[in-house]
């Protein structure tokens, strides 16, 4: 079992530097959550690992292999990458979308074995009954589960998930991340996911990586990293840390303008009354 290593990565997006000399190590069988404010290069980091954007400097290693422009196809064979968003406007059935995960095995006739593999995955996440539905008629959560099956059908060693649950309701957030968790453990995957919900990251990630100002602000277990002082500074909002019944940290932003907004509402109200009396 090899680890994925990023060494001294520098990533430029236009004129802004989203990573400067970042080094990280990812071990199999673990979920890594990448956290940080908008525009700190979380997605860029995933894209760099996938080879979609070129790094200015630095290396990415996985076992014997090293990421290089020339052998991109071979490098990507190990990677299951789910880009942001789940809008699809294709007239395809759910099964067809999942099958695309196994692109190299598909011909004019798709054999029973490939269909079986795809359907088994769909059964595991509970969407087998949607196999012949139009992908566009599925809910956002169901669609994301289908795309997750598609990625798993590639039998990746490394899973890159870019905000997989941002558009989902609580039920589907939990169900998708629960499947991500199980598959990561069972298949000994290296799972790297960008998340926005810090509390959700605390629940599912083995380790969290906090990005900010083009560098790694903190890295470690959710317990150690998700400190209110650090988060407040990074996100520019006051934050309080609570704990759920199992002792997991729950991060909640504190409303700054709460008292101010009440005053404002009262002012509005009195102005409204004044203007009415004028009429």
């Amino acid at each position, binding site marked *: 079992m090899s680890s994925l290593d990023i060494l001294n990565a520098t990533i430029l997006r236009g004129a802004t530097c989203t990573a400067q000399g970042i080094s990280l190590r990812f071990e199999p069988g673990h979920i890594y959550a990448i956290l940080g404010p908008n525009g700190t290069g979380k997605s860029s980091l995933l894209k760099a690992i996938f080879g979609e954007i070129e790094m200015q400097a630095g290396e990415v290693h996985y076992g014997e292999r090293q990421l290089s422009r020339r052998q991109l*196809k071979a490098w990507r064979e190990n990677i299951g990458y789910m*880009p942001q968003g789940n809008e699809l406007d*294709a007239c*395809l059935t759910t099964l*067809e979308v999942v099958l695309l*995960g196994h692109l190299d095995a598909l011909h004019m006739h798709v054999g029973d074995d490939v269909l079986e593999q795809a359907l088994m995955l769909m059964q595991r996440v509970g969407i087998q009954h949607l196999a012949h539905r139009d992908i566009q008629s599925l809910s956002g959560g169901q669609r994301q589960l289908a795309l997750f099956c598609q990625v798993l059908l590639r039998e990746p060693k490394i899973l890159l998930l870019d905000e997989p649950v941002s558009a989902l309701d609580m039920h589907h957030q939990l169900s998708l991340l629960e499947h991500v968790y199980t598959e990561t453990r069972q298949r000994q995957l290296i799972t790297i996911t960008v998340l926005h919900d810090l509390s959700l990251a605390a629940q599912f990630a083995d380790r969290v990586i906090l990005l900010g100002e083009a560098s790694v602000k903190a890295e470690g277990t959710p317990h150690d990293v998700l400190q209110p002082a650090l988060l407040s500074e990074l996100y520019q909002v006051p934050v309080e840390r609570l704990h759920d019944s199992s002792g997991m940290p729950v991060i909640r932003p504190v409303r700054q303008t709460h008292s101010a907004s009440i005053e404002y509402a009262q002012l509005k109200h009195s102005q409204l009354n004044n203007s009415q009396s004028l009429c």
Partner: protein
Amino acid sequence: MPGMANVDTSLRATIQHQRRLERRRWRIVGGIGFVAFFTLVLDIATGPSMLAPGAVVNALLNIGDVDEMTRVIVMEMRLPMALMALVVGAALGVGGAEIQTLLNNPMASPYTLGLAAAAGFGASLVIALGTFGLPLLFAVPLGAFIMTMLASGVLFAVASLPRMTSAMLVLTGIALLFLFQSLLSLVQYLSAPEVSQQILFWLFGNLTKTNWLSLSITAAVTVVCISLLMRLSWQLTALRLGEQRAAALGVDPQRLRLVVLFLVALMTSVAISFVGVIGFIGLVAPHVARMLVGEDQRFFVPLSMVTGAAFLSASSVLSKSIIPGALFPVGIVTAFIGVPFFFWIIISRR
């Protein structure tokens, strides 16, 4: 393990469902293929010379007593024309389907990219400036072809730029369309009225100039291009999920775009060079196919092909039977039946 047998039966049932769906889709392709064949027969049977059906059959099968005139009309005019309608319809149908896939835009067709306008300009140049000693029958298609290849060259160059999106490619196509249209107008403006008339006549798509040679060339190119496109079916299906996802699935979107653009440009250029501008098939055929079988390219491409073929063949029959004894340019007819049909599709999809 308990429940294993249960799991297995539900899996089996879903696979069987999939097989039924596949068979149903092949039946649709076969059904429309049969319609195309039926219109082919009608197409051969009808014509301004109003031959008796019996004589046509005899001439086709070369049996019985057929006079020379009938034989020439059937074998040298009607048969190649009718077959050309199928081949050109197929080429335009598949061309439209793949351009729509490539540009991720259901309103696109090979004409959106300016290919037809380029062909018109090329043909008009040859008609206006002369053929440099070549027979007109070949010089005009050649001029049209060279100009469409030139337009495609510009498209390739743009498509191979780094970070090129399909939206930018559509814009390039529209720019080319306007460029060639204005150049065509310029040629028409500068040339004598008779020449201008001739150019105008070429612009209405027309199957009447078909002979066995032009048919064989078009058929060969179309067969080769469609076969090559069929081999890319799954990659093109993956492209429907967006370029980023397609790349994540192992497709090289940039390379795929260039290959498909080349094949489509070649196939449609050859077709329009010989028959002129026949609109609407590249737009309507893929829409019909998409409604009936979805966008799994294994079915989408063959169905776009037979739908395009049936559509042009039926238009050809109509072009001969609107006024018996007269023959309308088929390009006018395709738009006439295409537009109401297209409206119906748009409205029924609300």
